[in-house]
């Protein structure tokens, strides 16, 4: 049965460095949760505490309602996939997967035939039956990753923890394995926690995302929630590229640089008048060639179906992603001036404390 995990008020310091600060988090049975954050945000420490490889200074880790902090890791029934896989280098693929079954106390150990059967099933599941006699050194990165996963699943864990599972793989293998893992998770009844610094991976694979920064949880929500309704600038910036458009608020109206865009969106109710910054995704930002526009175009770089247009606006270097087809005939040229036209953005009451509900602004 998949585990219900409740992390309550967990803190951990290493000397002067606070790795985790009062982290509270609940994970429902069968969920696949991605813990997302930059390196040093404490996400791996959190995973290691749940596994029992690390002790929290304060707080509790409840698995199915039972406090696990003092329980030795070997009794937790947790599957762990290490970033660098940590396969047993002196054992074959088969022996690696069988390890968790072979080390069980005699009374609980399956018979030799049952172990064989179980390992074969797992080899089929990860599609590596033909490699069972190979050693880890003879496998590719993606194959090692799948062996590590099969090895962790062999003990039928209630909880599967994955530490940067695709971090050591190249981009193409990463994509394929990610999708494969997502499907696998649907087929196996297990609660999953995945640690990653790659926002795309988190957005694509998980049911929910936990964003962490400097040992604190910044926001928890479904991929759609955190992407469309980020709670603070950190979340917005970490989930994708950001252009910061200077803007002014005056009597409930928002004006971006150059005074072009105004909108009545109930702005005044929440944010006081004055200078502010509109957070915009580059693909939500248009540019119109305008001889008296406030933006100066610096470079236009094609990238796939998009053109990356870099421009200077009030001393800030920003960029917009425009469809490549729209560049020709738009009049946009390096050195020319233009009017930035944000279509959608988020306004945070920066410097005035984080709002529970930031303003989502869109051109109506």
């Amino acid at each position, binding site marked *: 049965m998949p585990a219900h995990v409740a992390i309550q008020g967990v803190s951990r310091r290493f000397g002067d460095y606070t790795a985790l600060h009062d982290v509270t988090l609940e994970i429902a049975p069968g969920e696949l949760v991605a813990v997302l954050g930059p390196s040093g945000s404490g996400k791996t420490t959190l995973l290691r505490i749940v596994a029992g490889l690390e002790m929290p200074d304060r707080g509790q880790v409840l698995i199915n309602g039972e406090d696990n902090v003092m329980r030795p*890791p*070997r009794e*937790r029934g947790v599957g762990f996939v290490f970033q660098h896989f*940590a*396969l047993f280098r002196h054992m074959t693929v088969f022996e690696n997967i069988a*390890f968790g079954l072979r*080390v069980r106390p005699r009374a609980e150990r399956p018979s030799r035939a049952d172990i064989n059967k179980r390992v074969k099933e797992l080899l089929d599941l990860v599609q590596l039956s033909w490699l069972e006699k190979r050693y*880890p050194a003879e496998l590719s990165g993606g194959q090692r990753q799948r062996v590590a996963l099969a090895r962790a699943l062999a*003990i039928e864990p209630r909880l599967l923890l994955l530490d940067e599972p695709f971090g050591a793989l190249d981009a193409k293998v990463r994509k394929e394995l990610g999708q494969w893992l997502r499907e696998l998770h649907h087929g196996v009844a297990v609660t999953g926690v995945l640690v990653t610094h790659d926002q795309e991976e988190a957005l694509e694979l998980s049911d929910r995302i936990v964003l962490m920064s400097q040992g604190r949880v910044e926001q928890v929500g479904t991929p759609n929630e955190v992407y469309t309704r980020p709670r603070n600038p950190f979340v917005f910036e970490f989930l994708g590229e950001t252009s910061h458009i200077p803007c002014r608020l005056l009597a409930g109206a928002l004006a971006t640089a150059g005074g072009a865009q105004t909108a009545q969106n109930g702005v005044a109710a929440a944010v006081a008048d004055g200078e502010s910054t509109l957070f915009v995704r580059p693909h939500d930002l248009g540019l119109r060639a305008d001889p008296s526009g406030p933006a100066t175009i610096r470079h236009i770089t094609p990238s796939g179906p998009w053109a990356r247009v870099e421009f200077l606006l009030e001393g800030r270097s920003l960029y917009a992603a425009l469809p490549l087809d729209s560049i020709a005939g738009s009049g946009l040229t390096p050195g020319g001036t233009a009017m930035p036209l944000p279509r959608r953005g988020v306004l945070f009451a920066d410097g005035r404390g984080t709002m529970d509900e930031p303003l989502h602004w869109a051109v109506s």
Partner: protein
Amino acid sequence: MRDRAASPHQGGWTIALIAVALLFMTLFLLLPLVTVFAQAFASGIPAYLAGIADPNALSAIRLTLLVAAVTLVVNVIFGLAASWCLARFAFPGRSLILTVLDLPFSVSPVVAGLMLVLLYGRQGWFGQWLETHDLRIIFALPGMIIATIFVTLPFVARELIPLMQEQGAEEEEAAILLGASGWQTFLRVTLPKLRWGLLYGVLLSNARAMGEFGAVSVVSGNILGLTDTMPLHIRAMYDDYNIVAAFAVASLLACLALLTLVAKTILERRFLGAQREARIA
């Protein structure tokens, strides 16, 4: 052949350098080895066998093997424990211990032997206490074992520490999370991971243990047939002008050394292969 032709140092110089190298090898390595065997068999095989079958010689062989065996066990246990502590944990004094660990390499074996005499000898620090408890260390087997352990102590640990540092502890963590106990983890994961390094260290320390002369000679007291190891016996026979007996035992010791060398070469190949594998993994 084309490679050699392309080399900038060809002709006379190459041949001269090779000749010099070969001459030195022959003079200083090969010839002495041949001499040992030539001298040993100089008076025929019966004399050779008599030299070895001499009760004192047999006792020296037994003693050498015994000292080497005890040293080996101690070195394996100490080497594993020390390298585990030093490679896996950071604690105050760690670098000091690492330095002290090299002491036996830098201290002359004779000095090591004298230190033991100063500690455990009749006039030594513990001499009084040992005498009242009727324990003999100096001029007896325990002293010889301690001296041999002292000079061979760093070999295993020095081999294992860098290996353990390179391998890290993730495999052990994985084993424990898969349900293995500490002992299972050690036997099934840690030990196999280290096996080539461990064997290599043991072999080096064993070669040294069997051949050790200086430290052992100071603490043994050279009691014929009692505290004589092979190197000491060879020296004693040689001093007695019993050349054939001396070289018969010497040839045996040389054979043991050659065997060790062969084993070391084989291991080195496998060990390096395993390391290369580990680096890919």
